[in-house]
Structure formats: structure tokens, C-alpha cells
């Protein structure tokens, strides 16, 4: 299940709803990304996430389907916010449920790595020196590349 929304979410409540009443899940792995203030002159006062409505949903669905193809997952959830948010607020939530922990861990890391390099979101940070667009990193590209199939 994927969801793109402006409003904050409650990671615990979302995860609880996903797993409610189920006795077939052995492992529930979740990732939550949070706006980080940072230090010194680079400290972030707020962040605005722009996205590409329509393509965002399609791309997240593709990424989720790819994770389900690669690992035996019993339930998955991806929530990604857009709009303005302040340090400490949640940006993204990915939850993967599987019988065994390794599949749940790998699928969750994979979803984040692909999401970081494929989902059409762009971060605009507000700092004391003004607003600036966050640049993509080679580290994120490398992280996504480790999931490439032969």
C-alpha cells in the first residue's frame, strides 16, 4: 500500500493498523525518515518537498511491486509526505512484514534506496543563509546500485 500526503503521519499507528489481527507475520521492519535540523550555518529551519503528482504515486507503486517480486513479503506500506515540514517531523515511512527478518530488513532497505533515487521528490531547505535545493548524492546512487540484478 502506498500513500502520498501533505499531513503528518503517526508511524506507530500506521504500523499497528498494517499488522492488526495478523498472526502470520514473524518480522516487522520499519524505516522512518525525519527532518534533521543539522548544525552550524547549515542548520535547517524548515524543508519543503516538491513532487510530481501522479508520477509520484505510479513510481512508488512500481518500487513497492518490485520489492514484493524480490522478497516474500506479507504486507508493505510506503507513506511519503510533500509540502513544508519542520525539524523533527516525519517525511517518509516504509514498513515491510515477512515471515523472516532478513527478507523484511532487505526489502525495507531496498525500498528506501530505490525511493531515494527514483521517486520524484525534491527538497528545498530553508536555512539562515536562504533557501537552497538539496543536491542528490553519489552515496544514494551507490546505495541503489547495490540492488541491481545480474
Amino acid at each position: 500500500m502506498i500513500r502520498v500526503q501533505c499531513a503528518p503521519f503517526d508511524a506507530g499507528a500506521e504500523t499497528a493498523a498494517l499488522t492488526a489481527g495478523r498472526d502470520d507475520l514473524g518480522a516487522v521492519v520499519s524505516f522512518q525518515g525525519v527532518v534533521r535540523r543539522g548544525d552550524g550555518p547549515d542548520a535547517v529551519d524548515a524543508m519543503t518537498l516538491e513532487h510530481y503528482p501522479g508520477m509520484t504515486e505510479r513510481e512508488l507503486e512500481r518500487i513497492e511491486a518490485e520489492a514484493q517480486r524480490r522478497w516474500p513479503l506479507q504486507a508493505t506500506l510506503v507513506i511519503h509526505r510533500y509540502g513544508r515540514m519542520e525539524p523533527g517531523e516525519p517525511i517518509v515511512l516504509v514498513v515491510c512484514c515477512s515471515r523472516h527478518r532478513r527478507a523484511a530488513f532487505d526489502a525495507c532497505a531496498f525500498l528506501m534506496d530505490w525511493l531515494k533515487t527514483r521517486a520524484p521528490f525534491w527538497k528545498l531547505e530553508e536555512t539562515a543563509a536562504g533557501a537552497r535545493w538539496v543536491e542528490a548524492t553519489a552515496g544514494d546512487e551507490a546505495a541503489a546500485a547495490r540492488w541491481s540484478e545480474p
Partner: protein
Amino acid sequence: MRIRYFAWLRHRVGTADEEIELPAEVTTVGALGDWLAARSPGFKEAWQTPGVVRVAVNQTHVTDTAAAVKTGDEVAFFPPVTGG
């Protein structure tokens, strides 16, 4: 054809989207980018810098500049994504 721009590319071009009449000779993503670059200095600079502009045709990532485009498509240009 609808053209969309995102993030700082949107600022450079000065608009979030535009409707264009696709010239008959423009049939690929690469040719479309070149044609748009001829109209917009801000877009041209980014377009000619390797690795800076990404493209989606009908909301699907396209990495091959030889990929086809045609009237009715929605084509988006944007910087590398930074979500998550």
C-alpha cells in the same frame, strides 16, 4: 504536448509547465530537449550540463535520449530526485 519542469529547473525556465506545438521533426527526447533549449537560456545551460537533467515521458523515467516522443505525451524535465 505538455511540458513540465520541477525544482530548480522550474525556476530556471520560469514556468512549471507549458503547452507546446511539437514540430514534426522532433521525435525523440534528445531532440525535444535541444528544441526547448533553443527557446530558453536557463533550460539550455542545464540541458547542456551532463547529468543534471532527468526526463520522464508520460510519468515514466526515460534514460535514453533516443526514446520517442509524440504529440499528446506529457514530458517532464527535472533534476536528480532528493526525496526520502
